[in-house]
């Protein structure tokens, strides 16, 4: 029997099929035309043609954040591949699994400054989990299979696979074998927490008087919110989420005290500052959380659970480090707590909650809306929450609108809040929302964006038309780079250096030009009605351009160089 032979391009597609990939997000070019030809000749995998490779990475990323499935990107060598760099960095910073297939010039040309040659493996080295440079046909299935395994296990992240042209062309054929049960001798991520550490943690929790649970994106990534909720209900303690961790526990849960950090709630930051024990779950003490590390929670014993040992004691020293998958470790903790018949000291607990409720009563997440004034951006987010009954996928860009979305749309479920937290990439929102809509066509998918951010990938309106992706774009249009402007107001004496946009397009016309529906909202009294109208149009993309008050700042806000709980509550009002 003769074995069937395949080209490298066919192997790429067959490998992806074997790994149950449904979509490839990409853009063609010289070095990958053979792969495009192979894609054309099959119908298991659908290719989504974006309008810019950066959008392909964000679209794959959004798809992954909503579904948990690894997103796949395909780009040609040189500029195609370098256009992916921002999207790869975005995924890397938020630990999102992604496989980027990058074309490369023929192996014989590598190093010659050939046409469209860029050392993409070199360019991306600091922003990937790993990369593979294929040099022979046989490398292809192996590299792709390993790339998926590495991207999706341990602390997830993007993996780049470089594919030179000469191993893809029809002239070269070979047998196809793929191993999907991967073992890599140098890569064995921890799964279970060390039992001694678990015991220590359970003991410390039992003795705590003012415990706070602080959870992050790790909970969302490992689909551990049910377990988290169970743990938190067992502990009866307050819980705060990071920006990446929102939805890890329901935003309306009575023990939830809001997001913490730079624009977190007063009660969350105060609770952290006054805690005697902090249980950190899948969070990494980012500088946007801690504020000044020197002043960070000096009296707290810190239990830090994370899959990535490098995240532990990097910025904040952990007293009880536990390396392992957060869901597995939480189960271990629950078991241990039940073994030691854990029950919190009710007197201490009620005192702690009394204190927290005092902070809550300050209502730090609030704003004033005068009926005769311009629409406040916060009001728009509240209206969206009401209209979608809190059940939408909310993708955001980066800026003030992102913080308003995080503060005013309490997420009931994980994977519903999709934003670029670690990298803060403007231009992420629309393509990410498209990836979500592709996966969940029957759900409300909103892109909350700004007049600045939306223009960083606005060309994707064309992709939305082609693939019928009717997301609802809501631009909190403050005619300025609001977040930059806010800093300039607060730190730079109100000098608005390049933070406003004097030549904004008519977004309604832009939307219409791309074949979509555009709606502009100017007045408060038409806000809900017109937004509702937008959501009632189910089969077309609606671009809602809401004129909001350009003077609004995001509050509360940590005071730079201060402790975690030193905040501006309003202009001139300190915590």
């Amino acid at each position, binding site marked *: 029997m003769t074995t069937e032979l395949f080209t490298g391009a066919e192997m790429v597609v067959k490998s992806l099929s074997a790994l149950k990939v449904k979509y490839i997000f990409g853009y063609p070019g010289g070095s990958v035309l053979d792969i495009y030809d192979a894609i054309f000749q099959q119908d298991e995998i659908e290719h989504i043609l974006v309008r810019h490779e950066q959008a392909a990475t964000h679209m794959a990323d959004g798809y992954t954040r909503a579904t948990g499935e690894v997103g796949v990107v395909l780009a040609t060598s040189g500029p195609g591949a370098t256009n992916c760099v921002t999207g790869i960095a975005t995924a890397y910073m938020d630990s999102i699994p992604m496989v980027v297939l990058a074309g490369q010039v023929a192996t014989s040309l590598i190093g010659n400054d050939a046409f469209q040659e860029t050392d993409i493996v070199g360019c991306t080295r600091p922003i990937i989990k*790993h990369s593979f440079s294929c040099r022979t046909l046989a490398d292809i299935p192996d590299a792709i299979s390993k790339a998926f395994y590495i991207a999706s296990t341990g602390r997830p992240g993007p993996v780049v696979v470089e594919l030179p042209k000469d191993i893809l062309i029809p002239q070269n054929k070979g047998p196809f074998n793929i191993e999907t049960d991967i073992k890599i*001798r*140098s890569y064995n991520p921890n799964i279970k927490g060390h039992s001694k550490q678990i015991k220590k943690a359970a003991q410390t929790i039992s003795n705590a008087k003012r415990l706070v649970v602080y959870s992050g994106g790790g909970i969302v990534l490992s689909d551990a919110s049910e377990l988290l909720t169970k743990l938190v209900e067992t502990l009866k303690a307050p819980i705060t989420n990071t920006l990446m961790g929102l939805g890890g526990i329901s935003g309306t849960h009575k023990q939830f005290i809001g997001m913490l950090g730079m624009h977190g709630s007063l009660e969350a930051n105060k609770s952290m500052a006054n805690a005697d024990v902090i249980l950190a779950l899948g969070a990494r003490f980012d500088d946007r959380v801690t504020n000044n590390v020197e002043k960070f929670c000096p009296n707290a014993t810190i239990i830090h659970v994370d899959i990535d040992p490098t995240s532990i004691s990097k910025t904040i020293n952990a007293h009880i480090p536990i390396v392992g998958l957060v869901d597995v470790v939480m189960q271990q903790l629950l078991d241990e707590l039940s073994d030691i018949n854990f029950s919190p000291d009710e007197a201490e607990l009620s005192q702690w909650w009394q204190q927290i409720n005092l902070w809550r009563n300050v209502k730090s997440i609030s704003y004033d809306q005068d009926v005769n004034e311009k629409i406040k951006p916060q009001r728009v987010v509240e209206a969206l929450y009401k209209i979608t009954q809190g059940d939408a996928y909310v993708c955001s860009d980066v800026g003030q609108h992102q913080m308003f979305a995080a503060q005013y749309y309490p997420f009931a479920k994980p994977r519903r809040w999709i934003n670029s937290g670690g990298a803060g990439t403007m231009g992420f929102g629309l393509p990410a929302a498209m990836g979500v809509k592709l996966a969940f066509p029957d759900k409300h998918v909103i892109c909350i964006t700004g007049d600045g951010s939306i223009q960083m990938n606005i060309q994707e309106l064309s992709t939305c038309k082609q693939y019928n992706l009717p997301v609802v774009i809501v631009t909190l249009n403050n005619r300025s780079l609001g977040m930059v402007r806010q800093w300039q107001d607060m730190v730079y004496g109100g000098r608005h250096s390049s933070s406003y946009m004097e030549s904004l397009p008519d977004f309604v016309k832009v939307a219409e030009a791309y074949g979509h529906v555009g709606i502009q909202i100017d007045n408060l009294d038409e806000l809900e009605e017109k937004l509702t109208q937008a959501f009632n149009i189910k089969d077309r993309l609606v671009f809602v351009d809401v004129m909001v008050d350009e003077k609004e700042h995001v509050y509360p806000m940590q005071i730079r160089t201060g402790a975690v709980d030193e905040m501006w509550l309003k202009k001139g009002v300190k915590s």
Partner: protein
Amino acid sequence: MRRILAILMENEPGSLSRIVGLFSQRAFNIESLTVAPTDDNSLSRMTIATKGDDKVLEQIVKQVNKLIDVIKITDITDRKHIERELLLVKVAAMSDKSRTEVTRITDIFRGNIIDIGKQVYTVQLTGDAEKLNAFINALQNETEIIESARSGCVGMARGDQALRI
């Protein structure tokens, strides 16, 4: 504080650049770095001499370990260990006096003169960094150093402990 790290990793293209990239990306210090395949050709052994306080060292070890190609890393500084570096040094040997002195110093340090030119000697010496420094100093007092090359240190724990898969 100076630390010696021994690393066992896959002998694959790109592995070295990942380590070097990591050190520069995270602003870790590299005093010296040596790498070569081991008796098992699929593996490379690397020794890095670095500097940093405990917190930095903890991060270095964890970050290196996190690289997919890396199988093991150990900090051998505080253990009983052997540290060796190779020095090749070319010195001026123009006068009888300088030739005798170079020979004498080389003998004292148990080095070898491995090549001679018309007016130069090339000397080889192995030892730890301190010994090599002392040797260079001694030579400098007697003659002119024309060229020198040091390998950077390689290290290994003493006794039964082994860095292997």
